[in-house]
């Protein structure tokens, strides 16, 4: 019997291609006659295009065509079209030009004259809520329910807010659990803070380049996407095409972090341009352009009030959060922040209010732990503050408020498949050496002060109901087809192990098929929200089980007995009572082809998605073909946890923070691939550290244009910014509602990393929460030196 694959360190099958330079990402493809597109980007944060004079550009040698907003599919407000005549942020694409090479295309762009009419703009939510504040859109500044609306707070709302606090007028959305006023009345300690969280660009290392061409009415697209099956569907949807007429190739994706869930918005440009001029078009996106169109996490302006009993239990939590929504919405982070806080701290009473305000800043999208990562980084230093004032251990106050497995949280009393956060806190405390380290909190060594912090962070970690598809071919090998994407999480291979383990095959006999829709892939979850580990170990477990049943039936038919008498292992199906009676997978595959029907994919279950049915039809007759939908029961949502612990040294002379050590422990169920899990936990945590310390936007308030357009100004963490000394572990308690027991992990790490640092830095400042991120050296130095704060409490994009 082959050793179980789940839980082993196995290098992913695409690694050799990645480290030899053979792996082809979107921009690495070339086809005959390929042209290059360049974009003309809006120079203003909000304007109307009145007149485009492209005559000089189009007369240039080597220029083949232009694509404007009038050429591309219209999108209903407040949606985002790929090109527009009313740009809503600096850098929004207005038109594209195709030419023989990129320089000529750029020359042509420079030669285009546009008559712009400037329109009012706004950069942060609060300014748009002022009585006479500008709106980011002509049709409103927010959305109430599904309608675009305008919310303006009154002079009185602003006058009522004490100096330095956030005014709180009419909310766009609100929910209540219990009686928040009664909760505060029962509290022994109330903390009330005005807080700001920055907006920040995703910045995957590979910009979102796409190459497209058409052949015989079919669109062929090479692109960078987190998801394959679902991106194909999104592209087909945007172009109103039959999904079978879109061939999508995305074998490798150079990172996404939520910015390329489908990423379909701008993929449409080379597709339509190619169709218009009848030539293949490569749209290479560079870092400068990626900063504008590459999506961002929305920042918050917030007022947060929490009531604690003397024993540390939270009696009431009242948050009001404004969301920097960008011009098209696309995120509800301020509201998911409320339910994440409800789950993490289980307040006895809670009110959550928010307005998602449109702004003329780059579009927002989910970024790894959307809403959750922000709020955990903001709230954990407040938990520390309460612990200090109440004389409770800072770790203990989190444990006191942490949920049990039977938690019902959020506005609708949501339940979960499993919760083992207390186990993660305990394990982390032991590994980190909490008691020893906390004793050194505030210790001064020369100019450096030690700070100790921790962050407890949950986030969504699974969905269900997707399809699995595999073929056992006459060579006896198992070909597991994956419709998810390949953005570096290794899930294309790791979730396939679930099917292989059911069949009992060694990894060498497994071939993972992914990244190209013409290779017949099943309907899959988006590779986002940390869904795939849970969703596709289930789907692959289901299809492995279906394939095993077909093998058992074939064996019983040929060798006698009933299917239940047979088992599979080591590439054979054999009789349990006499293991020498059986046949190889290769033989069974040949028999399946002879038998046809449901053995070789000619007939499949009716509950499968149409994409899976089409894929199975494409594979029919090529071996034993199994397709199955994940029909395993599930009650409640799926969430994973990461508890992060950090020790930092704050240099009081320079304001520089050095992260000396980091420990993280996860509750993410069964471990599929230990080394990869460690990579996710550390990588996500370090992204969180970038939020806490360095990454930000800076906008010119007068002209509404960005100063932080590149990596060095946005400052994601480099190798010298992170501790060399890091450790991770997992509680390894399987999720009871999955046959494999594994939950996702990508999202919750970010909040843990961010919060461990905001908490540790506050500790190094003697327990002072500065209530904003990022905590850059100038912010810290102003506090250390007793100067006025570098920025006002509600200043965003500074």
């Amino acid at each position, binding site marked *: 019997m082959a050793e179980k694959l789940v839980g082993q360190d196995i*290098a*992913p099958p695409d*690694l050799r291609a*990645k*480290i*030899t*330079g*053979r792996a082809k990402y979107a*921009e690495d493809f*070339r086809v005959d*006659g*390929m042209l290059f597109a360049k974009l003309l980007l809006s120079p203003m944060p909000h304007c109307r295009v*009145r*007149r*485009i004079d*492209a005559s000089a*550009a*189009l*007369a240039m*040698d*080597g*220029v*083949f065509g232009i694509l*404007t*907003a*009038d050429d591309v599919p219209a999108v209903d407000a407040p949606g985002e079209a790929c090109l527009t005549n009313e740009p809503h942020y600096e850098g929004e694409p207005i038109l594209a030009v195709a030419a*023989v*090479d*990129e*320089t*000529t295309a*750029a*020359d042509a762009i*420079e030669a285009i004259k546009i008559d712009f009419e400037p329109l009012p703009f706004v950069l942060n939510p609060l300014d748009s809520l002022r009585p006479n504040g500008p709106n980011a859109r002509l049709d409103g500044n927010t959305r109430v329910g599904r309608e675009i609306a305008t919310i303006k707070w009154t002079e009185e709302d602003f006058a009522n807010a004490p100096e330095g606090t956030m005014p709180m007028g009419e909310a766009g959305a609100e929910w209540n659990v219990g009686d928040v006023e009664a909760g505060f009345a029962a509290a022994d300690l109330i903390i009330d803070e005005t807080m700001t969280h920055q907006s920040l660009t995703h*910045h995957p*290392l*590979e910009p979102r380049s796409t190459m497209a061409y058409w052949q015989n009415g079919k669109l062929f697209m090479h692109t960078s996407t987190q998801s394959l099956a679902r991106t194909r569907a999104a592209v087909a949807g945007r172009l109103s095409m039959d999904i079978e007429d879109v061939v999508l190739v995305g074998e*490798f994706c*150079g*990172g996404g*972090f939520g910015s390329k869930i489908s990423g379909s918005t701008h993929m449409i440009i080379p597709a339509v341009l190619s169709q218009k001029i009848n030539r293949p078009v490569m749209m290479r996106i*560079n*870092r*400068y352009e990626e900063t504008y169109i590459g999506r961002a996490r929305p920042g918050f302006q917030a007022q947060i009030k929490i009531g604690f009993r003397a024993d540390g239990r939270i009696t009431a939590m009242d948050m009001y959060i404004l969301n920097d929504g960008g011009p098209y919405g696309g995120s509800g982070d301020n509201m998911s922040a409320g339910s994440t806080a409800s789950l993490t701290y289980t307040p006895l009473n809670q009110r959550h209010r928010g307005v998602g305000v449109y702004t003329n800043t780059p579009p927002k999208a989910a970024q790894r732990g959307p809403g959750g990562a922000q709020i955990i980084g903001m709230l954990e230093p407040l938990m520390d503050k309460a612990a200090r004032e109440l004389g409770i251990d800072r770790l203990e106050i989190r444990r006191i408020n942490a949920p049990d497995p039977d938690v019902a949280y959020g506005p609708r009393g949501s339940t979960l498949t499993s919760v083992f956060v207390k186990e993660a806190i305990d394990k982390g405390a032991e590994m980190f050496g909490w008691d020893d380290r906390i004793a050194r909190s505030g210790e001064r060594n020369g100019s450096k002060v030690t700070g100790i912090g921790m962050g407890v962070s949950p986030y969504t970690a699974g969905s269900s109901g997707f399809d699995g598809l595999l073929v056992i071919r006459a060579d006896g090998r198992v070909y597991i087809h994956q419709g998810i994407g390949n*953005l*570096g999480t*290794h899930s294309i291979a790791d979730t396939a192990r679930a099917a292989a383990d059911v069949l009992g095959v060694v990894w060498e006999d497994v071939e993972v098929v992914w990244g190209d829709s013409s290779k017949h892939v099943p309907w899959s979850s988006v590779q986002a929200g940390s869904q795939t580990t849970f969703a596709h170990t289930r789907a692959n477990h289901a299809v492995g089980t279906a394939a095993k049943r077909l093998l058992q039936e074939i064996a019983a038919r040929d060798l006698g007995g009933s299917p239940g008498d047979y088992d599979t292992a080591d590439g054979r199906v054999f009789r349990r009572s006499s293991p020498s009676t059986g046949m190889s997978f290769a033989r069974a595959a040949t028999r399946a082809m002879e038998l046809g029907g449901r053995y070789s994919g000619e007939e499949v279950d009716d509950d499968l998605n149409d994409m899976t049915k089409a894929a199975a039809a494409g594979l029919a007759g090529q071996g034993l073909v199994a397709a199955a939908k994940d029909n395993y029961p599930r009650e409640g949502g799926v969430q994973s946890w990461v508890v992060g612990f950090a020790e930092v040294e704050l240099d009081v002379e320079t304001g520089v923070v050095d992260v000396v050590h980091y420990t993280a422990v996860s509750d993410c169920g069964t471990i599929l691939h230990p080394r990869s899990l*460690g*990579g996710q936990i*550390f*990588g*996500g945590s370090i*992204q969180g550290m*970038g939020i806490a310390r360095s990454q930000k936007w800076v906008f010119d308030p007068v002209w509404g244009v960005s100063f932080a357009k*590149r*990596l060095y100004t946005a400052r*994601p963490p480099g*190798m*010298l910014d992170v501790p*060399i000394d890091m450790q991770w572990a997992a509680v390894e308690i399987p999720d009871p509602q999955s046959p494999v027991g594994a939950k996702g992990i990508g999202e919750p790490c970010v909040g843990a990393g961010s919060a461990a640092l905001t908490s540790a830095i506050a500790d190094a400042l003697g327990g002072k929460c500065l209530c904003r991120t990022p905590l850059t050296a100038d912010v810290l130095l102003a506090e250390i030196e007793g100067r006025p704060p570098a920025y006002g409490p509600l200043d965003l994009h500074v």
Partner: protein
Amino acid sequence: MSDVEIIGTPERRVTRRTFIMGVIATGATTSSVGYLFRGSKPLLGATAVQGSVERLVTLSVNGQQRRVDVLKQETLAMTLRYKLGLTGTKLGCDRAECGACTVLIDGVPSYACSVLTQTVRGQEITTIEGLESADGTLHPVQQAVMDEGGFQCAFCAPGFIMSMVAMVEANPTPTKEEAAHALSGNLCRCADYNKILTSAMRAAEYSRQQA
């Protein structure tokens, strides 16, 4: 939207025209967007257009002499990727911020996006494609990355691996801190730094064994 007036229709003349105008246009463009390139004629199936003053040079790439037409303002990254078909060298930022385009020039790690091709004639250029032996044997650094389970999205991997090759050459016995410094010119947005550092230490070990 449809009330926008759009003037102009594309002309597909590919004859060489006003040379002087072209030079001016290219100069103006280069000053604002210095990351651009012109494609080679065979690749694009079109005659070169204005401002293209290509010059035939010989480059030594991965041990081979490669003759290629390059522009004065062309970067090595563009020559490698678009003219020599060596797409393993990645462009992450076009401007010396991320290190994805790192190649070795006479053994020294360099950002290919910020090196003009015409300045490296006569020097030995090594790219990620040049590490593996003809028989498929991986370079010790690649083998180390393989054995440690490698990168996540791996868009940064070719650049990091080239920096590791230079590192083990210059310092085969690095401490973790020294390795981190040697690799600090490369950015990994998946932030898989821990695994990269472990790979680098193993790479140094393999290189010592081989030496």
